[in-house]
């Protein structure tokens, strides 16, 4: 990445920590300085360990310190996973060699090696997930501690899978370590930017259209499935959204929106706004590479300066994004979609996936737009 003003997305080390820390049975050790440790520790709200290396270890090597910490945090029944940061990588330490005689998972994903997603995928790959053809149920994919919707997504998809007469299988990445090696052959996704590649991906669950398609595929492949109740719920809940949006459009013009976030989430949000509110999608800015064939103006946006330029150019009255985007156009309606979502109290765990996910998202959009419209004088 070239020089960048106010970078908006975490590094590979954070992505690796987010993937590993989601699993019970793994103790994650950040091998680096306290500065590198504290960010994922506060962001992920998960128990992480650190080696907190100092100048002494940079000069004389960090092996002693790393092994000391591994010895201290190792407990029966858990495996230690070491995530490397930039400094051990730059000084060329042979961390793999240091750990050769230890039963430790090593993920070499320093910040300089890439972005959040690359670290996440590398960490997940280091666990060598395996499909067990006899494992029942459906894997739920793309559940990540960094994602403010992950807990809600997991709860919602578990509910829908259960309503279809099935059970959830491995949750990637929020499960036991053992479950990673006994995944079901079938998988449904929440956030496709974090797709694991484990099992046969039947489809996504963002938006009613994809959700319907995915559950129809579940019905085709699982004899035990009874997807009727889920399809009925989808039709019923989508009608709720249509009615609420239709009522909104009786009084107000469609919003002109800019959307910033993970490519999959941003695509879902833009499509929902277009479908139900006939919104003008002025621009979609993705934190990670843009997905192919997106029917909106899209570009990868990783700096706050570019966000400001796009917002200034597009003049939206609705901004969808993170707490970084929220203050950029304070007179616009804002709905949170992208981490971090800070500066507001969040106690509940709303989903973005499933039927409830679309309901929550559109509910947020309608309320934010109506609140904004009430504050704008008529004719303004």
């Amino acid at each position, binding site marked *: 990445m070239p020089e960048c003003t106010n970078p908006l997305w975490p590094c590979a080390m954070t992505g690796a920590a987010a993937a590993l820390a989601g699993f019970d049975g793994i103790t994650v050790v950040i091998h680096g300085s306290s*500065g590198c440790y504290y960010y994922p520790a506060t962001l992920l709200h998960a128990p992480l360990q650190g080696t907190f290396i100092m100048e002494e270890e940079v000069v004389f090597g960090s092996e002693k310190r790393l092994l000391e910490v591994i010895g201290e945090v190792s407990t029966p029944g858990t495996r230690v996973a070491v995530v490397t940061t930039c400094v051990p990588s730059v000084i060329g330490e042979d961390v793999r060699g240091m750990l050769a005689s230890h039963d430790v998972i090593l993920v070499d994903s320093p910040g300089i090696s890439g972005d959040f997603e690359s670290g996440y995928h590398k960490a997940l790959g280091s666990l060598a997930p395996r499909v067990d053809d006899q494992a029942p149920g459906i894997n739920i994919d793309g559940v990540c501690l960094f994602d403010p919707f992950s807990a809600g997504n997991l709860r919602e998809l578990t509910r829908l899978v259960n309503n279809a007469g099935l059970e959830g299988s491995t949750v990637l990445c929020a499960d036991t370590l053992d479950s990673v090696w006994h995944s079901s052959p079938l998988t449904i996704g929440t956030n496709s930017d974090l797709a694991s590649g484990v099992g046969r991906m039947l489809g996504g669950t963002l938006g009613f259209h994809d959700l319907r398609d995915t559950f129809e595929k579940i019905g085709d492949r699982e004899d035990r499935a009874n997807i009727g109740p889920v399809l009925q719920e989808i039709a019923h809940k989508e009608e709720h959204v249509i009615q609420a949006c239709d009522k909104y459009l009786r009084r107000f013009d469609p919003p002109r929106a800019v959307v910033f976030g993970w490519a999959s989430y941003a695509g879902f949000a833009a499509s929902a706004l277009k479908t139900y509110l006939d919104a003008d999608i002025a621009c979609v800015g993705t934190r990670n590479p843009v997905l192919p064939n997106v029917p909106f103006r899209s570009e990868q946006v990783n700096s706050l300066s570019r966000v400001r330029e796009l917002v200034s150019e597009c003049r939206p009255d609705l901004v969808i994004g993170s707490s970084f985007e929220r203050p950029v156009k304070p007179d616009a309606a804002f709905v949170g979609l992208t981490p971090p979502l*800070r*500066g507001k109290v969040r106690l509940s765990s709303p989903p973005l996936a499933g039927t409830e996910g679309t309901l929550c998202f559109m509910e947020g959009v309608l309320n934010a737009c109506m609140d904004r419209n009430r504050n704008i004088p008529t004719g303004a």
Partner: protein
Amino acid sequence: MRLNTSRFEGCTLTGALSVTTAVSGSVSVIHGPSGCAHHNFSLLHTTALEHDGTDVPQILSSGLLENEIIFGGEAALERALAGAASLEPSCIFVLSTCIAETIGDDVGAACRVDRGVPVIPVPTGGFLGGVFEKGVNNALCAIADTAAPATSDGTVNIIGEKNLEYEVEENHAELVRLLDILGLSVNIRFVHNVSPDDVAVLGRASFNILRDQGVVAAGDHLKARFGTAYHPSFPSGLSGTLRFIRKVGAGCRVPSRAAVHDEQAVQEDMLAEFSDLSGASIALNGARAPSPAPAVAREVAAALAMKVSAGGCRVPVPLSPPVGTAGVRRMLHRWRRMINA
């Protein structure tokens, strides 16, 4: 785990940024991987939101990747500095990271190039440069060196406020209230939402009040540069607040007897609001040495005839001691909530 305190005291870079980003209109250039910049920008942005601020810190990363690690990152720093200058900032701060220090880039040379705006290098190096507190002091000293000595005008500087502290504005308001009853006014908040022009008058103050012992190095630096004496901490607790009034009064050569008397009355009224807590049994939760906060908490408990015992209701003790009488009041509201829960 074996305790080595300095391992856990955070990054020099974060400490320095908590100061440099509080200079309005400035850009802080971080010479290192963009991840370092993101970590810190995310923290500072969150803090700004929690302080109801609208100004977002301007942080520009040189975005070091593996290529620069191998072949050197000075060209990337040069591009970042050119980019920062194009934003027409009030000044540019240049901060290195442990990565830049490890590969040995010459940050100082890039800072000596004339770019039409002041370019101020701040010695940081992530954990190689020290700890969070060291970064704060380094930044304060670097910024202080941009100001020239001046004739004292009887005002007071506030030095080294904890800009990441959730209640930083409330603590400042309490300090100003106490200074006001001494008839003293504030010259500048060094450094909290000030411009380079504000910094230029730093030397005018007759007395400095440091946030806490952590910025004594900066206090000493200011004393050497401007000859300004200092008080080493904000007021904390009941007797501590009265003692603060006396000491600052003496330092500024203004009478303090009436101010102490008035503040005693304020404290008595405040304690009377919490008379219902008298006799309650409490355990001090989070009381850790070497912070003076536990001692303050015990003093407050004694003033209200509360019993401190391990089996009592666990009440929170803040990491930093409560500032002034208003800080004690807020702490007592939290205690009452716990006791009545």
